[in-house]
């Protein structure tokens, strides 16, 4: 298991480098000019100097190498400096945003907590709703509850967040005036009142994001439970006189959770993608909104780094899913 984990971890490094290269090359053919937004009055010589300062004059492989070094060598040092108060990375070049001239990682570090809060809460809420739904739907297969939940999850799965988001805002914020319709990023939790406000402004985005999670995971939960409920060991457990609760919630559930846990791990990055749309709907100042802003402003370093960050999340989730599968299921042995 340990060798498998190590090999899997080592394999993801070249994968990430290739992904970084793909993202870099794709963006490099960009016909857009980062200097396009500057005023016309700037003379060509100054323009050329500014291009030089942005690192645009150098050949492709040099820029890729510089970006990789800055991302994997300088940025970790900055992090170490920040945590331990050392000064490893002083005066070393960092990846700079073309928009704000601030380090890209600094910009991302400011936006990431918003996304993590909303997305993380939504994912947990979604899972907590999905599991009981799937379990009960499978236990009473083809019952009214099962058919109703099939229909509801199908509808929830089919409604895109850019439709449910505005509709929910319309009903709950505009008509009923229950929740604020814009997420206030600068809001700080200091006392009970500000905490309730924070909860209130998170309700709608979390609701929109968790609908998709619930719909997907409850389907997996249901089919995994169905697979196990018809197994022989269930009949044996019942024949031994175990209570129905123990049979379903201990024996069947534990076996059914194996594929579901991997689906949960695999689905985590996808919800970050979904957050791009939800952040747009609720005006949350997270990394999704940052990405859209950077794309529209042609801020290549920020787009590079954010896209790469999404890729890292996906690769990590795949890794986690593989390892969890091996850990949870004793029938799987990695040679």
């Amino acid at each position, binding site marked *: 298991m340990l060798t498998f984990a190590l090999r899997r971890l080592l394999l993801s490094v070249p994968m990430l480098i290739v992904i970084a290269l793909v993202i870099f090359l794709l*963006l490099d053919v960009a016909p857009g000019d980062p200097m396009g937004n500057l005023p016309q009055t700037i003379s060509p010589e100054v323009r050329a100097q500014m291009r030089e300062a942005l690192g645009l004059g150098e050949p492709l492989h040099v820029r890729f190498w510089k970006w990789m070094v800055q991302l994997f060598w300088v940025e970790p040092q900055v992090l170490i400096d920040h945590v331990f108060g050392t000064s490893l990375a002083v005066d070393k070049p960092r990846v700079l945003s073309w928009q704000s001239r601030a380090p890209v990682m600094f910009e991302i570090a400011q936006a990431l907590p918003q996304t993590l809060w909303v997305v993380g809460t939504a994912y947990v809420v979604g899972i907590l709703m999905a599991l009981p739904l799937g379990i009960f739907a499978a236990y009473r297969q083809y019952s009214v509850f099962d058919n109703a939940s*099939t229909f509801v999850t199908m509808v929830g*799965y089919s409604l895109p967040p850019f439709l449910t988001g505005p509709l929910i805002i319309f009903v709950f914020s*505009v008509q009923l005036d229950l929740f604020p319709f814009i997420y206030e990023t600068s809001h700080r939790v200091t006392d009970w009142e500000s905490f309730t406000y924070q909860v209130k402004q998170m309700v709608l985005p979390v609701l929109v994001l968790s609908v998709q999670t619930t719909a997907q995971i409850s389907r997996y939960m249901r089919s995994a439970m169905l697979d196990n409920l018809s197994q022989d060991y269930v009949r044996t457990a019942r024949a031994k006189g175990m209570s129905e609760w123990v049979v379903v919630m201990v024996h069947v559930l534990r076996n059914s959770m194996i594929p579901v846990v991997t689906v949960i791990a695999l689905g985590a990055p996808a919800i970050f*993608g979904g957050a791009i749309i939800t952040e747009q709907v609720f005006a949350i100042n997270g990394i999704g909104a940052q990405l859209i802003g950077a794309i529209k402003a042609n801020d290549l370093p920020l787009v590079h780094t954010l*896209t790469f960050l*999404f890729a890292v*999340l996906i*690769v990590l989730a795949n890794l986690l899913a593989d390892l969890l599968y091996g850990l949870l299921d004793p029938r799987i042995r990695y040679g």
Partner: protein
Amino acid sequence: MADPLRVSHGLWRDILRQFMHHKGAVFGAGLFAAIVIGVLAGPLLWDVAPDAPDFSARNAGPSAAHPFGTDQLGRDLLAQVLAGGRISLSVGLAAMVLSVGLGTLVGVAAGVFRRLDGPLMRLTDLFLSLPLLPLLLVIVMLFREALSASVGTNTGIFLLIVIAIGVTSWMPVARIVRADVLSVREREFVLAARASGTTQMRIITRHILPNILSPIVVSATLGIANAIITESALSFLGLGFPSDFPTWGRLLSDGVVYLSEFPWRVFWPGLMISLTVLSVNFMGDGLRDALDPRLRGRAAPL
């Protein structure tokens, strides 16, 4: 060799029977057919131009002259929804054909030719690890102007969005197809075909492809829904079709701004997107059950 249609007659009838038992699937297929027919034939019955402004009825609510209401320039929303539907459905169908075609090609190549299996599956893994929505946004941003300049704005963006969705959604199909090809190619009838001197190409087209048709059909059905949602999401994020080019996603995102005053502008395109995706998903569900020989002949759910 006997006529394959005649031989498989009983099979198709079985599949149809199983499909008809699945009430959700029949409902989905009916609804989808109704939407397609409505969008295609609708303009014949409702011949208002979708881009004709009517300044006397701007932002009007539903009325006899404008059953779905109008937008801020007084353009008829019903006509726009009908015109947008044709574009959204064509984007969905074209992107689906591209993604299923690519996926089948990669899957069959990886399954049949041992030497290609490793590289192609690593390529699939690589594509699966790419952050797709961010990349889609980036692709559209990068190539929009270049393509618009060479083949015209509307054709350019149509091609771009179809290709972008196609090349970012073929991976699941490739994986499923490869797995099925691997199991089919070891069967006796493939061996028999090879022994009787059938060429590789003919083995693929005559013996392997017909046997892996069911996962392809199911992926194709669900692919339409995926493509329509992705197109709408791109339009919603401002990186899809331009504003004067109505698609359901475009109409929806244009209407969201006016949601509190004129909710019908969100309602109709939103309803059409949701109904299409819902009907396609139900249809895919039913097809999956109908095409799965292990489930066929059993009591149908719902």
